[in-house]
């Protein structure tokens, strides 16, 4: 528990202290590859949400994928 709190604290300090110092190392004009639609995490939200539901209804694991929704899938 203490280790976990320490980890969160270090993350928070890192984020706040980094605000003043870090310069973007990939300039806006260098991001053409990243802007390509094939580089998006989730090109078709309707399909990803469906697959998340299929998997969650048959597996014990859940979460961590950014999906929100409901339903049972009990049968």
């Amino acid at each position: 528990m203490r280790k976990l709190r320490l980890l969160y604290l270090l993350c928070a300090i890192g984020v706040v202290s980094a605000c003043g110092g870090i310069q973007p190392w990939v300039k806006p004009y260098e991001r053409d590859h990243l802007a390509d639609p094939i580089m998006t995490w989730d090109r078709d939200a309707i399909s990803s949400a469906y697959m998340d539901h299929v998997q969650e209804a048959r597996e014990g694991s859940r979460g961590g994928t950014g999906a929100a929704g409901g339903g049972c899938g009990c049968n």
Partner: protein
Amino acid sequence: MGTTSAHRQPLRTPAFTAFAAFTALAPLAALAFLAWAGAARADVLPDNRADIFYSRYSGGGMDITGESVLVREKFSDTFAVEANYFVDKVSGASVDVLSQASVIKDERIQKSVTLTYVHDKTTYTVSYTESRERDYISYTPHFALSQDMFGDLTTVTLGYSRTRDTVGENNGTADVPIIEWLGHAESISYDLGISQVITRNLIGGLTYEVITDDGYLANPYRLARYLDPLSGKGYSTESQVYPDTRTSTSVEGRAKYYLPYRAAASVSYRYFRDTWGVIGNTTELDYTQPIANVWILEGRLRFYSQGHARFYSDLFPYADSQNFYARDQDLAAQKNTTIGGKVTYAFLPDGWKVFKRGTATLDVSRIDFKYSDFRDIRDYGVPQYAPGEEPLYSFNAMIYQIYLSMFF
């Protein structure tokens, strides 16, 4: 149902303390992130979009078709609304239901509305989802806040949702249902995500999510079984008894790389554990190859494994043998492998009337499920297997998705 709530004890485990720490620090973190609003470029909303979607799942004795419509429209440069309507039609029943009950027909209707507002480098999202089946009703409000920082190299997302479920059981038939409402369950989810530009060709991400449940969490259609020498089969069944609470933690890391010849490869790994003792590992590999700005081909491999819940057993030694007992295949030890392919065809490159462009997509996946402590207890005729010596259960499922997307 016959579940004995007197047996149930709330679980308080280290995952709960992690959850408490997360909730304590999340507001501080949110304030720190909000304080960091750069001045260079504001976030932009994605294009207006309309999707018509059809899906079919077939496997494990179940046949499920899904139809969906999604529309997303910007009402200004900073405000967008998205609406989604989804209908699932289920026929058949999974193996453990088949071994105990009649075939099931059901329909699930899910509706959701999402509002998105962009202010400078911050995106606020509020959504509401309602899902209804004859024997299951679920409501989920969701809030998310996303902040770009460090010259737009980093995006941090905080999410919160609260789901309230009403759980019932159909004691009638598929055509003449008699629903007995068994109870409520409430689920609260907190998630924290970071997406990071690492190089001009590489992007990475990390998501941490804690979900807590409280209430009626069992699946009423599944039964535990125990050795019973007086029974002809050598075993009898009883209602499952689950804990009233569950807390799960999942962490997913992912990376996507732009290859030199215009293609993308991605890898992700998720670690999951919960207070029921389930530990899951998910690894996914994905490759995307566009061809001549008209086609996009995508291949996908997913490997999943999980250990069983502490109170799961395929066969208990006698009735009511412990405080909690379950024989739900979702809580059994299993491995599954998904192989999938997706083809997207882009049309109307120059637009037509109000539409800027359109895409048509076919996605086919196959999942092979293998259980290592869940047995197939369907009637094999004579000679019958001794209890606990039936073949281990395995099945495969085919999933088809076809959808048309119009951007305007």
